[in-house]
C-alpha cells in the first residue's frame, strides 16, 4: 500500500500550483474568520450585558443633562432596587492629547449598582471620607503609571468657580473591572466635590444607573419611567444595558452591514474560484489516474486518494486562515471591545472547507473515473 507516497506525489507534482491553491484558501478563510468573528463578538458583547440594569439619561441625548434631584423619584418607582448617577468630567493630563475621563459619582451607591467595578472596603471608606479623594481604574493607573497616595492635577474642559481648569485629586485606591478590564480606563471622583467646584451645570448629572429587582420587567419599567417624565422640564430616555450596547454597535451599523453583504458575495465567488482551480489541477492528471486504474486501483481507492488531497489542502488552508483571523481580530479591539473568533465560527469554517474539498475533488475525479481508461489516458 503506497497511499501516502502517492498522495504526496500528487501534492508535489506541481508545487507552485499546490501552494497557490493553499494560499488562496488561506486568504479566503482569513476573510471569513475575521468577518464572522466580528459579528459574533458583537453578539457576545450584547449578550454579556446586565439584564437588570437600566440607564436613564436625557431624552434629548448627547450632552444634555438631568437634574440630580431625580435620584429620589427614580428610586421610588416600583421594581427599582437601587439607583446611582454619574456626572462626566472630560480632562487631559499633562499633555493636551492625553485624555482622562473622570466621573463624579456617589461613593455610597456607585459600587453597589456597578458591582463589576470592585475596590477594597478600606479604599471605599477613604473615598467617602476624603472630599478630594479619587478611585482610579486599573487600566488608567497602568496607562499613566499612577500610584495610590499620589496627588494628581488634571486639566478639565469644565471650569471651576475660581475660573481655573486645574482639577486636583488624591488617589485613595484602585478599582478593578472584573468583566471588561478595558472599561476601567477612568477615574471616579466624589460627586459632591465636582458639583461644588464647577462653575457651570450645578446639580446636574449625565446619566442614572438604575438596578431593577426582576430583569423580566426591564422594558416595562423603562417605559413607565419615561412616561412619568415625558411632560416634565426634563424628559428622560431610559434604555436597558443591552439596548445601549446595541446602540454602541449601531455606530458601526450600516458599515458592518454593507461590508458584510459585499464581502459575503465576494467570499462565495472566491470559494468557487478556489474550487475551480482545484478541479483543474485534478483534471490535468487524468492520464495518471487512468494509469492507476489500469494497474488495478479500485474506483473507491482512487476517489479516496483524490479527496484526501483536495480535502487536505482545503482543511489545512482553512485552519491556517482561521488562525490568522484569530491573531488579526483582537487588533480591532477598539471597534468591538473584545474581538475573537469563537468556536462555532471555527467549526462552521472547517465545515465549509470540508464541503469545498469534497466538491472540488469528487467532481473531477468522478468524471475521470467514468471515462474508459483509453480515453482518459489519451487526454
Amino acid at each position, binding site marked *: 500500500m503506497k497511499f501516502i507516497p502517492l498522495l504526496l506525489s500528487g501534492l508535489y507534482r506541481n508545487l507552485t500550483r499546490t501552494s*497557490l491553491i493553499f494560499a*488562496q484558501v488561506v486568504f479566503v478563510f482569513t476573510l471569513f474568520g475575521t468577518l464572522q468573528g466580528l459579528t459574533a463578538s458583537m453578539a457576545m458583547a450584547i449578550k454579556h450585558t446586565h439584564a437588570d440594569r437600566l440607564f436613564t439619561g436625557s431624552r434629548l441625548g448627547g450632552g444634555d443633562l438631568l437634574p440630580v434631584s431625580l435620584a429620589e423619584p427614580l428610586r421610588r418607582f416600583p421594581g427599582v432596587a437601587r439607583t446611582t448617577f454619574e456626572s462626566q468630567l472630560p480632562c487631559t493630563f499633562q499633555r493636551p492629547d492625553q485624555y482622562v475621563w473622570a466621573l463624579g459619582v456617589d461613593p455610597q451607591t456607585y459600587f453597589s449598582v456597578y458591582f463589576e467595578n470592585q475596590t477594597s472596603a478600606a479604599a471605599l471608606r477613604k473615598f467617602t471620607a476624603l472630599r478630594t479623594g479619587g478611585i482610579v481604574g486599573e487600566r488608567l493607573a497602568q496607562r499613566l503609571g499612577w500610584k495610590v497616595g499620589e496627588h494628581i492635577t488634571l486639566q478639565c*474642559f469644565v471650569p471651576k468657580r475660581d475660573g481655573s481648569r486645574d482639577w486636583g485629586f488624591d488617589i485613595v485606591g484602585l478599582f478593578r473591572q472584573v468583566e471588561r478590564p478595558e472599561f476601567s480606563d477612568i477615574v471616579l471622583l466624589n460627586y459632591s466635590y465636582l458639583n461644588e467646584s464647577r462653575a457651570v451645570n450645578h446639580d446636574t448629572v449625565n446619566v442614572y444607573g438604575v438596578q431593577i429587582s426582576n430583569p423580566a420587567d426591564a422594558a416595562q419599567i423603562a417605559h413607565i419611567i419615561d412616561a412619568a417624565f415625558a411632560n416634565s422640564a426634563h424628559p428622560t430616555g431610559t434604555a436597558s444595558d443591552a439596548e445601549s450596547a446595541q446602540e454602541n454597535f449601531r455606530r458601526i451599523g450600516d*458599515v458592518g452591514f454593507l461590508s458584510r453583504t*459585499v464581502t459575503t458575495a465576494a467570499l462565495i465567488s472566491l470559494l468557487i474560484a478556489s474550487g*475551480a482551480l482545484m478541479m483543474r489541477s485534478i483534471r490535468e492528471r487524468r492520464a495518471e489516474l487512468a494509469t492507476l486504474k489500469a494497474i488495478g486501483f479500485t474506483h473507491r481507492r482512487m476517489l479516496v486518494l483524490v479527496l484526501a488531497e483536495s480535502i487536505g489542502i482545503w482543511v489545512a488552508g482553512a485552519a491556517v486562515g482561521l488562525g490568522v483571523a484569530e491573531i488579526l481580530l483582537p487588533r480591532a479591539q477598539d471597534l468591538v471591545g473584545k474581538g475573537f473568533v469563537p468556536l462555532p465560527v471555527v467549526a462552521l469554517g472547517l465545515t465549509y472547507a470540508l464541503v469545498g474539498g469534497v466538491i472540488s475533488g469528487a467532481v473531477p475525479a468522478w468524471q475521470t473515473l467514468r471515462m474508459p481508461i483509453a480515453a482518459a489516458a489519451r487526454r
Partner: protein
Amino acid sequence: MSPIRQSVALTIWGLRSLPSRPGAFLTSFVSIVLVAAVLTSLLSMGEGIHRFGTNHARADRAVIMSRGAPDPIESIIPPEALATIANDPQVRRAADGHPLASGTVTVGVDVMTREGTRGTVYLYGLTNPQVYPEIQLMQGRWPRPGVHELLASAAAQNLNVGLDISSRVPIRGADWTIVGTFRETGDLFDQALLADAATIMSAVGRVSFEQAVVILKAADELPRFTEVMAANPTLKVDVYGEAAIREERISGTRHFLDFVAYFIGAIMAGAATCAALSSAYSAVEARAQELATLRAIGFGSASIIASLITEALIIALIGAVAGGLAAWIGFSGRTMSTNALTFPVVVGPRELIISALWVLAIALLGSALPAVRTARTSVAAALAAA
C-alpha cells in the same frame, strides 16, 4: 520586426486566444472584478462622509471653541467672549455694520422617522444666521427671536414625520412651531432644525454658547486672527479654519471606514493575486509549445514577457472598469448611517483610481513571475516537453 511591434503583435494574438482557455481566464478575471468592486464600494463610504463633512466649508470662515475642547459638547463660549470675538477688526461686517459672527448651540431632538423608528435630528441655535449664507429659505419665514419657532431642512422633513410647516415639536415639555423650510445643504446641516440661539438657551437652561463662528475679511487673515485670539488672556480659545475642523470631526469615522476598506481589500487582493498567478501559470503551460515556437522563429524573450504582462494588465483594466461600474451602480448615492450621521455614499474618481491601481498591481504581480519563468526555459526543452 522591432521588439515593440513584436510585443504588440503577441499581445493581440494572446488576447485573441483567450476564448480557447476560458477556465483559467475566468478564474482570475472574476477575482479581479471582485477586488475592484469591493474595494471601490468600501472606499466610497469614506469618500461619502468626507464630501458630506466638508461640503460648503469656506476658507474664510473660522470656528472658535474653548481651549483644548475636543468637540463642541465640551466647549463653552460665554456671551462676553462672543462679543469680544465678534468685535475683532478682522471679522467681516455686513452692509448694516453688524459683524458676521454667531454663537452656536446644539440640542438633540427626538423625532419619529417615516420608517417608524426613533431618530434624532439636531437643533442648531444661531445668534446670526448670516454666517451661513448657504442656508436658503425655501418656504415660510425665519424663526423670530424670543418665540418658540423653528426652521426645518427639507431633508429632515422628508425623512421624519411631524416636521412640516406649522406642526409642533415638543422640546423640554414646551411646544415649538415649525415656521419655515430651508434647502438642505448636502452637509452637516442636512438633517437639521434651526432656531434663535438665545431662545433655545433660555428654554433648555444654558448660559453659554458651544462655539462661535465668524466670517473673516479674507481667507488669509486666519493665521493673524488665530494669533490675536490666542494672545487674549480673557478668552482662552482655540481657532480653527472651518475646513480643518470639519475634516477633523469626521476623521475618526473616516479612518474607521478606510481601515475596513483596506483591511478587507488587502485580504481579497491576496486571494486574487493567488488566482491570477495560478491561471497565468496554467496559461503559459498550456501555451508552452506555442511560445517556444515563437522564440524559435526569432521573437525575443523580452517581447514575450512584455506581451504576457501587457495582456494581464489589459484584462485587469477591463476588470477594474467592470468592478468599478458594478460598485457605482450598486452603491453610488445610497445613503448610510453611522455615528448619528446619515450621508450618501460617493463613488468618485479617487476610489476608482485607487482600486484600478490595486488591480493593476495584482495583474503585474500575477503575470510577471510566470512570464519570466517561461522566457527563461530553453526553447529546446519547452518544445521537447510539449
